[in-house]
C-alpha cells in the first residue's frame, strides 16, 4: 500500500479538480452534469479506439500507430459502400475489408520484421499509417462523408425533475456507450472462453513458448489484427456518424494514444478506464479550466483539449510508469 501513495495522491488531486467547479458554485448543476456526461461519452469513443491498440499490443507486442488510420479507413469504406447498399451490408463488407487488411499487414509488414525490436515495428506502423491514409483517400475520395445509423440526432431532455432545465443527452452517445459495453463483453468472452482466445493470450505472454506448443504465430497475428480491425470499424462507424467521416478522424484517434499509455499498453481494461478518465478530464479542462486560463493569460481562445490528455497521461506515467493496469517490466541482467 505504501508504494501506491503517489497514485492515490494524484487521484485525490484530480478528484478535487473535478469537483471544484461544482463546489465553487460557479456553474449550474445541470450544466455540470451535461459536461460530465459529454466527457464520459467522448471517453467511451476514445476507449473504442484504444481497445484496438491494447489488443494488438497485447497479442503481438506491436504499438500500432496506424490504429487511427485503420479507424478512418474502415469508416471511409463503410460510408462509401453505404451509398450503394443498405448499411448492414456495407458494414459486413467493411468487416471483410478489415480482415483482408489484417492479412496484408501481417504478410507484408509483420512477418519480415518479426525479430526486430519494438521501435522498428512502431516505425513500420508509422509507414502503414501514411500508406493507409493515402490509399484510403485515393480509393474512397477525400471529401466528408456521412454515415447514417438511423438514430435521431436531436438531443433528448431528461431528468427535468432533478436538475433545473433538465440535462441534454445525445441518443447517439448513449448508443455508442451501449455498443462499447457490448463489445467489451464480447471480447471478454472471446479471450476467456474460447480456445482461440486462450491461444492469443499465450502468444501475448511469450511468443516462443506459444510457438513451441504448436500455436501458429502468423495465424494468431492475422486473427488479432482482424479483431482490432473490426473494433476499429465499430469505432469508425460511431465516430463517423457523430463527426462525419473525414481526415480529422484519424487525428482525433491520435488522442487514443495517451489513453493507452495511461491505462497501460497491455490492458483492455486500462483502455476503457483510461478512455473515461481522459474523456472526462479533457472535457472538464476545456469547459472549466479553459476560460480561467484565457482570462488570466489573455489567450486567443481555448483549445486546451488538444493537449490536456497528454498532460494527464504524463502525470499518471510519472507516478506509475507502466500505466494504471499495465505490467511492470523487470530488467534482468
Amino acid at each position, binding site marked *: 500500500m505504501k508504494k501506491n501513495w503517489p497514485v492515490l495522491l494524484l487521484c485525490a488531486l484530480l478528484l478535487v479538480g473535478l469537483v471544484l467547479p461544482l463546489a465553487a458554485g460557479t456553474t449550474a448543476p445541470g450544466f455540470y452534469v451535461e459536461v460530465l456526461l459529454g466527457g464520459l461519452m467522448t471517453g467511451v469513443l476514445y476507449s473504442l479506439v484504444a481497445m484496438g491498440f491494447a489488443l494488438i499490443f497485447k497479442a503481438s507486442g506491436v504499438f500500432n500507430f496506424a490504429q487511427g488510420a485503420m479507424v478512418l479507413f474502415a469508416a471511409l469504406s463503410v460510408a462509401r459502400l453505404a451509398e450503394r447498399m443498405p448499411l448492414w451490408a456495407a458494414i459486413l463488407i467493411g468487416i471483410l475489408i478489415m480482415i483482408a487488411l489484417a492479412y496484408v499487414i501481417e504478410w507484408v509488414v509483420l512477418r519480415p520484421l518479426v525479430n526486430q525490436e519494438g521501435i522498428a515495428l512502431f516505425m513500420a506502423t508509422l509507414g502503414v499509417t501514411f500508406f493507409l491514409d493515402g490509399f484510403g483517400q485515393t480509393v474512397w475520395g477525400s471529401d466528408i462523408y456521412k454515415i447514417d445509423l438511423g438514430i435521431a440526432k436531436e438531443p433528448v431532455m431528461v431528468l427535468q425533475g432533478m436538475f433545473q432545465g433538465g440535462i441534454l443527452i445525445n441518443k447517439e452517445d448513449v448508443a455508442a456507450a451501449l455498443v462499447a459495453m457490448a463489445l467489451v463483453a464480447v471480447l471478454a468472452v472471446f479471450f476467456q472462453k474460447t480456445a482461440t482466445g486462450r491461444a492469443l493470450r499465450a502468444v501475448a505472454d511469450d511468443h516462443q513458448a506459444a510457438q513451441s506448443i504448436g500455436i501458429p504465430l502468423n495465424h494468431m497475428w492475422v486473427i488479432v489484427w482482424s479483431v482490432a480491425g473490426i473494433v476499429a470499424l465499430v469505432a469508425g462507424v460511431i465516430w463517423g456518424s457523430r463527426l462525419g467521416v473525414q481526415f480529422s478522424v484519424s487525428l482525433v484517434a491520435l488522442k487514443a494514444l495517451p489513453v493507452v499509455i495511461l491505462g497501460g499498453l497491455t490492458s483492455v481494461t486500462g483502455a476503457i478506464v483510461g478512455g473515461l478518465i481522459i474523456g472526462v478530464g479533457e472535457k472538464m479542462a476545456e469547459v472549466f479550466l479553459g476560460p480561467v486560463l484565457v482570462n488570466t493569460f489573455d489567450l*486567443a*481562445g481555448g483549445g486546451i483539449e*488538444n493537449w490536456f490528455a497528454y498532460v494527464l497521461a504524463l502525470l499518471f506515467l510519472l507516478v506509475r510508469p507502466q500505466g494504471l493496469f499495465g505490467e511492470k517490466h523487470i530488467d534482468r541482467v
Partner: protein
Amino acid sequence: MFYRENGQFKSSYAADQQLLPILQDRVFMFALVAFAFIVVPLVVTDYVFLSLLIPFLILALAAIGLNLVVGYCGQISIGHAAFMAVGAYAAYNLVLRVPQLNFLVVLVLAGLVAAAVGLVFGIPSLRIKGLYLAVATLGAQFFMDWLFARVKWFTNYAHSGSVQTAPVELFGWSINSPQEKYVFLLAVLIVFTVIARNLVRGHIGRAWMAMRDMDVAAEVIGIRPVYAKLSAFAVSSFYVGVAGALWGFVHLGSWEPAAFNLTLSLNLLFMIIIGGMGSILGSFFGAAFIVVLPILLNQLPQFLGIPMSTAMVSHLEFMIFGALIVFFLIVEPHGLARLWAIGKEKLRLWPFPH
C-alpha cells in the same frame, strides 16, 4: 583499387582518431566543399536553390539534431517540430525586441532556448521508455502548437496569428538572394556538422550510444543515465531550434503556427529512418530524399502522360512514403547510410569481387 588505405599508416592516436582518416576521403570532402561553395552558386538556377537546396540544408540540420537523440541515444521523439517552433519564435522575439543583436547571436540564443525547453520535455525519459516516451513527446508537439497559437505575446499580438520577418542582416551584409542564403546556410551547416561529429566521437557520444544499446549495462559501466539522456535532448533541441529559426527566417520569411505541425515532425522522423539512424551522413541522405521526392512526384503525371490532380499527387506521396518506410525497415534498417557504406566497402575491393 583507388579507394584503399594501403600505405596510410597512422603513427599517433591523434592521427588515427581524426575526422577523416583516409586520404581519399579527405580529398573527396575538400573537393565536395569547394564545389558546393564555388561552383554551385554560379551554375544553379534560383528555382533549384529555393525549392531544393535551401530546404535541404535546413532540414539536414534538423535531421542531424533528431538523429542525435533518436539514432544515437535511442530516445524516441515524435514531436520534434515543436522545438523547431520554439527556436523560430524565440528568434523572432529576439530580433523584434532586441534588434541590436547580431543574427548569429540570435541563432545561438534561440538554440539555447529550444535546448532548455527540450530539456524540460526530456525529463519524462528518465522514468519512461520507448513507446511511452514517444507518446509523451507527441504531447509536446500538441502543447507547442497550442502555445504559439494562443499566447499572443509570441506572435506580437498579430491578428492573423502569423509572423513576418525581414531578410537576415549579418555584419552589414543583407542575406537576400537565393545564392546568398545558400552560402550562409551551407557555412552554418558545415560548422554544425563538424560539431556533431565531434560530440559523437567524444565520450558523451559513446555514453549516448551505450544508453541506446543497453541502458542497464551503461549504468553499470558508470554512465549516469540522467546526464546522458538529458544532454541528448538538450543538444538535439539546440540543433533543431537553430534549424527552426533558419527555417522561419531564411526559408519561409513568414509563418503561422501550423508551419511546425505534426506532419513536419513525422517528416523529420522519416528522414532519419530512411537516411539511417545513428549516422550523421544518413541525416543528409534522408533530408535530400524528403526534399527531392515530392518534386519528382509532381513531375510524374507529365512524365507518364496521365493527368492527376494535386490532391491525388499528395495522396500518392503519402502512399510512397509509407511504403518506403516499411521497405527500408525490412530491407535495410540502417537506411541509405548503410547502403552507402556497403558501396564504399565494395569500392575498396574493386575491381576484385572479394
